[in-house]
């Protein structure tokens, strides 16, 4: 029997909706969206966008509910802007503008510029909302302009000019960072940056000035003006550069206490574990710039390389782009505070754990001491959480006399009497069976391969 479940995040569009049918994702198009969909498909726009890798491809399938058409897009792993590094958000912004530019050639336009409509697929940003296109109406402004500024220009400007961590403001408001707040937070010198002045400060001023107007405004906005606006936004986004941050983790591999031999041994052990388990869908927590994630890339379907450090994720993303790695997805994730479910009824955007529930392997290398000593989390809690998420666990235990652990304890009282290898094993054995354990020569570290009980 078929089960049709409405995708809880898809209810704002009156012309189309995402539904889940037997674990497959479909987009159903209603009669109200028929004209725009047919124009997208028949004008050549769909073909050009798919061929350039800008838009997700789909297949039309049989209708299983009352609608005009049903399409089945390619499946992508869903991530959100607050889980992206600076360059990921910047690339998503540029993609949105490129799509708008291309659409205008075909007399179409994007009716929204939602950052959540962009996902990362095979290493590149891709637009996933096939029903975001509408026929371009002469002399109309770009209605998505405000959304573009709130969801791309403002967060990027704040990340560049104030603090790289400010993309997390997305969590406060699902519609992005409102321009009044962005204008207030940005330093005064940005008033002399013509692009930011126009699209954020001036834009915010006009929003404020006309926030309670009752007169209907008739505006003539030519296609040339629209083209200028898009190209000007493109320049604005290109000019926002990531500032070099002083990061604890950006140079991590240069600062570890591994000798070249022990580093090579760790890689050899991980290579060996790779052969023993399926490792098709991997979440690497504390991945840094992905050195150890990459050991698994020839076998895995997807590797979510999660790290809390912006610069490390940035480095990882740049490498993914440079080498064209299709199955590594760098993500900005704090495992101690993973993305929650947000939006209407907490159902518009899913929590990270909801989205990664079908992974089969977790890598947690040199992470345990940060969770236990840095965040006071008991071993048992960590083991239990990992057991909810995965079948296999590759975890590295770092002994208390390791220099990195000692660094964490340097200026605090050592209350961690239970931080021992024995306690670690006993706690994890409640949820996992230890398949293998390998001490790494010349280090105070032990690698474990575990399987959920």
């Amino acid at each position: 029997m078929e089960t049709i479940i409405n995708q809880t995040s898809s209810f704002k569009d009156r012309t189309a909706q995402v539904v889940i049918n037997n674990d497959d994702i479909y987009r159903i198009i209603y009669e109200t969206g028929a004209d725009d969909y047919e124009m997208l498909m028949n004008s050549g726009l769909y073909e050009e966008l798919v061929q350039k890798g800008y838009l997700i491809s789909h297949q039309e399938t049989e209708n299983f509910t009352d609608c005009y058409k049903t399409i089945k897009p390619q499946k992508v792993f869903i991530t959100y802007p607050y889980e992206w590094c600076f360059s990921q958000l910047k690339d998503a912004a540029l993609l949105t503008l490129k799509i708008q530019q291309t659409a205008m050639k075909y007399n179409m336009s994007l009716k929204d510029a939602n950052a959540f409509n962009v996902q990362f697929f095979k290493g590149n940003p891709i637009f996933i909302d096939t029903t975001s296109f509408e026929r371009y109406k002469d002399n109309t402004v770009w209605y998505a302009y405000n959304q573009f500024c709130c969801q791309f220009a403002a967060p990027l400007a704040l990340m560049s000019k104030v603090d790289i961590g400010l993309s997390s403001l997305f969590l406060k408001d699902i519609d992005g960072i409102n321009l009044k707040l962005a204008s207030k937070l940005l330093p005064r010198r940005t008033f002399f940056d013509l692009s930011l002045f126009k699209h954020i400060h001036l834009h915010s001023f006009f929003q404020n000035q006309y926030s309670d107007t009752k007169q209907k405004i008739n505006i003539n906005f030519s296609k040339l003006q629209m083209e200028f606006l898009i190209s000007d936004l493109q320049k604005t986004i290109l000019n926002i550069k990531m500032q070099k941050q002083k990061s604890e983790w950006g140079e991590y591999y240069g600062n570890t206490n591994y000798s070249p031999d022990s580093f090579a041994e760790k890689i050899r052990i991980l290579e060996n574990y790779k052969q023993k388990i399926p490792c098709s869908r991997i979440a690497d927590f504390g991945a840094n710039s992905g050195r150890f994630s990459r050991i698994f890339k020839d076998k895995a379907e997807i590797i979510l390389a999660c790290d809390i450090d912006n610069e490390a994720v940035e480095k990882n993303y740049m490498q993914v782009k440079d080498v064209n790695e299709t199955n590594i997805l760098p993500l900005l994730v704090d495992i101690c505070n993973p993305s929650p479910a947000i939006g209407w009824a907490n159902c518009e955007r899913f929590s990270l754990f909801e989205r990664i529930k079908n992974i089969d392997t977790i890598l947690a290398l040199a992470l345990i001491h940060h969770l236990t000593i840095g965040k006071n989390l008991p071993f048992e809690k960590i083991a239990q959480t990992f057991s909810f998420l995965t079948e296999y666990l590759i975890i590295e235990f770092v002994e208390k006399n390791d220099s990195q652990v000692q660094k964490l304890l340097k200026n605090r009282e050592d209350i961690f009497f239970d931080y021992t290898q024995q306690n670690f094993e006993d706690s994890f054995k409640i949820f996992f069976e230890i398949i293998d354990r390998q001490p790494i020569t010349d280090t105070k570290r032990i690698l474990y391969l575990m399987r959920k009980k």
Partner: protein
Amino acid sequence: MYINQKIKYSLILIIPIFLMPEKAFAYLDPGTGSMIAQVMIAAFGSIGYGAVLFRKKIKEFTKRFINKLKK
């Protein structure tokens, strides 16, 4: 010199703000300000943008014309 040019542009954009009609009453409409903002930005910017496109078209036309004459 560069900063002066930026200030000049900023002033060009600021002055029309004071020429706009005073705000009226009633319901909240955050879109109106965005509509006006993009009209203002594009109105000034597209003059230069249009000129660049026009120059490009003239260049292409001249090139085509010269090529035709050569043939």
